[in-house]
């Protein structure tokens, strides 16, 4: 597609509920990233895929967070037993390369509210 597509745009979850957030990257982009953005803050790195391989998951805040990209295209970020502190915007980005001059194309994000 022309851009990075994320769904749903908004998600309200009751505390303790599991959620799944979807990211469709730009076709052909091998690198895919997930970021978490709290209100009024910059995005914080969660995890990174190169094709289907998850090369860095150092930013995942707890073992309740899990990401996958089984066929090297669409990715899903799953949060189990959601807590109020998980409320944030979750951004997905893709990139065609890793050199210094490659930028990321971000989706519009999924705003998760845990009540």
């Amino acid at each position: 597609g022309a851009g990075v597509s994320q769904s749903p745009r908004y998600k309200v979850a009751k505390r303790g509920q599991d959620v799944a957030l979807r990211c469709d990257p730009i076709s052909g982009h091998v690198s895919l990233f997930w970021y978490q953005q709290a209100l009024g803050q910059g995005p914080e790195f969660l995890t990174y895929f190169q094709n289907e391989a998850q090369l860095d998951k150092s930013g995942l805040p707890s073992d309740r967070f899990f990401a996958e990209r089984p066929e090297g295209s669409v990715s899903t970020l799953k949060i189990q037993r959601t807590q109020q502190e998980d409320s944030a915007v979750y951004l997905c980005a893709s990139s065609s390369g890793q050199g210094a001059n490659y930028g990321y194309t971000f989706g519009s994000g999924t705003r998760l509210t845990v009540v």
Partner: protein
Amino acid sequence: TQLLEQSPQFLSIQEGENLTVYCNSSSVFSSLQWYRQEPGEGPVLLVTVVTGGEVKKLKRLTFQFGDARKDSSLHITAAQPGDTGLYLCASKGAQKLVFGQGTRLTINP
């Protein structure tokens, strides 16, 4: 982990004024990118700077990379309401971007 500090955190000025926002790092940048983010949207890449002392211009926006590659500035000339948004600097490492907390800019008509 590299820490990026952006200043000011908030800036509200009148249309037509000039402004400068800053990004400072605790360590040398490999390369640095500036993004702009509007409400409800993801960040959009404005520019990448790689070489110390580099200056890049994008219409009314001028980006400067410090000689020691530990700081950067964004200068906007004759600001317009369409410049309103969250300006983020980001350090680009081998595999991921590390963002500052951003400068929230409001241009009042």
